[in-house]
């Protein structure tokens, strides 16, 4: 793997980003507007200007959810833009490898995620006084763990798009939302039926959001949940990578990869 080529993919992504208003809207506008809705709902439920404990849980969930959403979206949309424009395989007749391309997308997604989380956190602080800075040195750990989860999902979604073609493009902005109801984003998974709790246990987000809420709302540092999330992140990334390699091999055999330029 060449670090230089990863940097050039970052350059490519940056050039694309500065010319594409819709990417700005997707990443920063939508995340901020969604957060505003959650803040006002939280205030409505609390019945006053404060958001209350449940409301704080909702808002924390939305602020940090942006790390998952933007990170995953960037990995898949980065490839999709190239597929839609039929320029995807032009990149791969250079020495660039799929791994270098993906790592470039992951890094660029991480940067955008961090910006999205910062913007969301500032909006939340301005409107509710809720400050994620109080999470201290665990804040970057939580963000990193959520990003790692987003990369795992991103790899799996990309594998599906490669396998099924760009007709499955909508998965890039829809599949990740399956995590929201079952992944403990806004509430403890104990409210879910037993069967769904078993599914929730497979998502790193379940442990990360539980740890964030425990630390922010109760002042308890749940290191066990943090380690569990890290282990699951590794499993998701590994499975995502295997799925992507299998899909790539299949498209190279079927000719679908070459047809991405026709």
């Amino acid at each position, binding site marked *: 793997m060449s670090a230089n080529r990863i940097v050039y993919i970052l350059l*490519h992504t940056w050039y694309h980003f500065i010319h594409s208003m819709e990417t700005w809207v997707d990443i920063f506008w939508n995340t901020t507007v969604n957060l505003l809705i959650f803040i006002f709902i939280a205030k409505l439920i609390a019945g006053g200007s404060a958001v209350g404990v449940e409301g704080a849980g909702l808002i924390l969930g939305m602020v940090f959810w942006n790390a998952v959403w933007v990170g995953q979206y960037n990995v898949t949309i980065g490839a999709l833009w*190239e597929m839609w424009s039929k320029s995807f395989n032009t*990149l791969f*007749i*250079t*020495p660039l490898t799929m791994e270098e391309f993906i790592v470039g997308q992951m890094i660029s997604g991480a940067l955008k995620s961090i910006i999205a989380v910062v913007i969301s956190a500032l909006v939340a602080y301005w409107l509710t006084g809720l400050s994620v800075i109080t999470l201290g040195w665990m804040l970057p750990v939580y963000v990193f763990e959520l990003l790692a989860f987003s990369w795992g999902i991103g790899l799996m979604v990309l594998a599906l798009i490669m396998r099924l073609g760009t007709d499955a493009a909508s998965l890039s902005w829809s599949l990740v939302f399956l995590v929201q109801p079952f992944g403990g984003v806004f509430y403890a998974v104990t409210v879910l039926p037993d069967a769904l709790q078993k599914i929730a246990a497979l998502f790193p987000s379940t442990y990360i959001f539980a740890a964030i809420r425990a630390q922010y709302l109760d002042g308890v540092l749940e290191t066990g949940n943090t380690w569990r999330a890290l282990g699951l992140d590794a499993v998701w990334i590994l499975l995502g990578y295997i799925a992507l390699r299998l899909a790539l091999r299949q498209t190279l055999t079927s000719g679908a990869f070459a047809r991405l330029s026709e």
Partner: protein
Amino acid sequence: MTELLLDVRQLTKRFGSPAAGFLAVDNISFGVREGEIVGLLGPNGAGKSTTIFMLLDLISPTSGEIRIFGGDYRHNRDAILQKLNYSSTYVEMAPRLSVYENLLVMARLYQVPDEKKEISTYVDKFGVREFLGAQFHTLSAGQKTRVVLCKAFLNHPALLLLDEPTASLDPDVALLVRQEILESRTRGMTVLITSHNMAEVEEVCDRVLFINHGKIVSEDTPVELARKVRHIRVQLMMKDGQKRTVAFAKKAGFPVEEKDRFVTIEVDEGDIAYLLASLADQGVEYRQISIDKPTLEDYFIKMLGGGV
């Protein structure tokens, strides 16, 4: 004898299942030597593009072996792609990036030394400078092809694969491309080219591989392939005796066409003297005569019709 730069052995590609699939490339073998310009010709669906895509590692072969610069993709992908490039009318680049941004990213991916100077050289050569700042998706088909050609020459490839490189180009730019191909060959570049422009192939190629139904059906220089079409067209602009000329040709068994004052007769090379002498004996007079030797295009047409 120069080095075999591209060595393809028993290459086969079958899409789908062995029982019901489609055999796109059927056990072909060929080699291209350093500095050679080789044409890969054949009708649509013959297997040319599938072969090119396998040479680019964009399609996995079902069986067979591809060695480029003495190595294979499994062990030498980085080294191979560093010295190889590809251009086609169908190649697209990142749509939202400007032409310059696209070329800069490509130059860096190929680790081109002094990339800005190289970009500047080819931008001028292919007349791209005037739209260097435009986003790629705003360009016309011809402009896109010129940008992709810049990309293809940027890394001074040792092996250049060209698929219809001049389709959609104005004749003056197509001429520039042919000149650049021939000039690059003097620097040692090897080229494998597919084209439907037979005159272009005749002009630049040292050798032609003719592929049909996934098989290489003939291989020779353009001149020798054209010679396999033994019929020569003799076109006469008649002054007197047009009906006698047509009647004689038909009686002699020569294919003949008549249009206004022109009569075109197809004869074997050895029968030209006999034809002209016979017409003179019959008092036929003509104002002009042109004798067209067979071209690669004639070979192509005859080949597809099974006439060679």
